[in-house]
């Protein structure tokens, strides 16, 4: 029995680690400027955890096998512990865990403590049950005001715009796909019309809840890498449970060259 425990635990450990080491399953391609640092932090954590994981599991397996009751009348070692040893691993664990955390501090700070670069492309993102819609301010760079009573999904007025009366709304462009140019800083302003949603693009290494009653800005820059995969088209998914259609709530991110983007925006403007 002891041997079986030891073998099974070892086997589970090796298979679990092996799949990570072989990168059978790994993050999708990274298309953002900030993603590489995150992936690196993940890898670092993975290595540290992997070492602890292997040591602890194999230690467990070994002890179970080594100290099994062989029926030879041997008495167990009488020990209430070892204070020095305990102090050592307490301090070691504290240093490793908290130190690891500090290493990732920079990434978080860059993402959230500073705003978007000046001149970033501003796009409003509106989430609702169960779709995302996007609004570009148009040439005047201003978003028109929202009138709740004007919101009408059936005729496509998701933002409640009054194009007849509000000057700033006239050139606003509402789309169902998030088109962005490559290499240009983008600032998204996230808001929700009804319940909580979340904005998650795996390849952008970007996830942020969308909270009704709040406007949450996030910013990023897509890299050239984005154009090389899947025609620049990536899935935007909702990750916050929002009701029956949660699993289908998504939109697409389309990364384009600067020229393609301008052309695309004009087509969209014409369809308004």
């Amino acid at each position, binding site marked *: *029995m*002891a041997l*079986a425990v030891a073998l099974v*635990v070892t086997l589970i450990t090796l298979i*679990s680690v092996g*799949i990570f080491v072989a990168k*059978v*399953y790994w*993050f999708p391609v990274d298309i953002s400027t900030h993603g590489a640092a*995150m992936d690196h*932090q*993940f890898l670092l954590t*993975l290595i540290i*955890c992997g070492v*602890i994981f292997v040591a602890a599991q194999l230690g*467990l397996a070994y002890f*179970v096998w080594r*100290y*099994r*009751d062989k029926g030879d009348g*041997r*008495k*167990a*070692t*009488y*020990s*209430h*512990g070892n*204070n020095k040893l*305990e102090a050592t691993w307490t301090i070691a664990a*504290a240093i490793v*865990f908290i130190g*690891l*955390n500090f290493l990732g501090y920079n*990434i*978080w700070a860059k*993402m959230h403590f500073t705003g978007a670069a000046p001149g970033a492309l501003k796009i409003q993102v509106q989430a609702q*049950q169960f779709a995302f819609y996007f609004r570009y301010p148009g040439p005047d760079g201003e978003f028109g005001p929202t009138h*709740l009573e004007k*919101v009408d999904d059936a005729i496509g007025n998701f933002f409640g715009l009054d194009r007849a009366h509000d000057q700033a709304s006239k050139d606003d462009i509402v789309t169902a796909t998030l088109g962005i140019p490559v290499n240009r800083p983008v600032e998204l302003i996230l808001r929700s*019309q*009804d*319940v*909580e949603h979340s904005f998650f693009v*795996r390849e952008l*290494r*970007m996830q942020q*809840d969308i909270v*009704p*009653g709040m406007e*949450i800005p996030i910013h990023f820059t897509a890299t050239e890498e984005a154009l090389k995969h899947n025609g620049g088209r990536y899935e935007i*998914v909702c*990750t916050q*449970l929002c*009701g*029956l259609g*949660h*699993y*289908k709530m*998504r939109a697409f991110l389309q990364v384009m060259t600067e020229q393609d983007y301008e052309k695309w925006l004009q087509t969209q403007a014409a369809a308004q």
Partner: protein
Amino acid sequence: MAEAHAPTAHAQHAPQGFIRKYIFSLDHKVIGKQYYFLALFSVFVGLLLSILMRWHLVWPDAHIPLLDKLSPVGAPGGLMTPEYYLSLMTMHGTIMIFFVLTTAPQSGFGNYFLPIQIGAEDMAFPRLNMLSFWVTLAALLTLLSSFFVSDGPPLAGWTAYPPLSAVGSVSGPGEGLGQDLWVISIALFCVGALLGALNFIATTLELRTRGMKLMRLPLTCWAWFITAIVGLLSFAVLFAAGVLLLLDRVGGTSFFVPAGLIVSDKILSNHSGGSPLLYQHLFWFFGHPEVYIAILPGMGITSHILSCFSRKPIFGYRAMTYSLMAIGFLSFTVWGHHMFVSGMSPYTAFAFSVMTMAIGVPSAIKTFNWLGTLWGGRLRLTTAMLFSIGFVSLFVSGGLSGLFLAQPPVDVNLHATYFVVGHFHLVMGVAAIFAMFGGTFYWFPKMFGRMMNETLGKIHFWLTFVGVYAIFMPMHYLGVEGNVRRYSTFIDDFMQPLLPVHKFMSIWAFIVGGAQLIFIFNLFWSMFKGEKAGINPWESTSLEWTVPSPPPHDNFAGKIPVVYHGPYEYGVPGAEKDYIMQDSPEVVAESH
């Protein structure tokens, strides 16, 4: 003044009559069993729901037999609708977390064994004890009744984030009466949990027998004691959150609902001024301590069993108690790590992150000490011991993935994916359930006077141990790939290559689910046909093993024991036997 010391009801004569004896009993042992069976019933309901979910995930077009009988609306013709999937998921989470993980290890085993282990005749407040059970049962029935309301059980998840959970049926099916019942059930559960916690704390502090210093308490008692304190402080907050949520739903207030919402083309003009984030803060202020409420008793039970079957004192008893206290304390400072992407201030995220890494330290200490306990021992691999070894293995695996989620920049890509699902199922779900299995095999002789079948127990262990790894380990890979949780079907092309992994997990889920029938059979068969158990079949040292199996009505038949030793005096050099009971006057040179 003797009366002041003898807390009212417990030293009375054994009650006569079926109802007083088995149903409205004041005896902590009966109440402990009532809790245990309530959790056992719940765990099978929860398990069944998870199996239905796993079935639907991998064969969305397959008809599930009898499901349309349970809900003709939710599963017309046996085909599960997305909303019914979410309802099952919500009920699975709620039942498992509240009525299984919070109930069995703490209220079940704790009720039965805390008084005996500290040498008391009953809990400090037997009437409150009975009340807490009945309130908990009422909470369970209230929750289950939501299966039978017309628009189905709630689907907002066990966290029930508003506004989805607060604005009523306009936000979708299940958000009408079903969600009301959910909130009421949780509020009731809070009341039951608070009464229980109060009782545990008072009992531990007041009713220890002579010589039972705090530093001589078995680690099980320490764990129950700390858990009770954590529960007392956290359920009070959930209760407040539940009351406010209920007010939002039925009273028309807006604590958690901001202005200007349009749900399904309907302007919610009657709501304004609230904040969904407020709810999240209140909920997780409870929610994170809650996961420790689920796991701490398991840690205590595992420590107890590991020491007993290693025939060796627990390694670092003091460190074990201090780490329990540290975890209990720190658990109140880390709730924000559930909210890294929630829209709360990113500056606070960093503080929460540091505290979360810090709470990993006492958890690591415990792991090292368990390994230290095994080291140099003479391991008897009984089923109870196997489950405890399994607990350590699972706790390490699930705990380490917490280090990823504790770091905001890493969490961003793993949040709300299957990585999280794998993490908490291993560390809090399955590990705690392994502790329950361990506890069941260990204490069954005491509770029922008969032994459980070891062969069946081992078959059950192996299937479960390998199975849970096969189910929950792959979830980490899926999470890294970006597989979002709480999706009822995987429709996008992106997910297609990952479906085989889901199939693998589902098949194992069916195997593990089936394996639990072995346990059920073993449990009930052994109650009637098991080998008769002696007073101390495991040669264990704590006080429950000094009394007959099962113990008499007042635990010690009027002879209150006196305690001379710590709880883990195994393999004492020079001692007559391999172990020294806590109430044995034999002298031990305290060596540390």
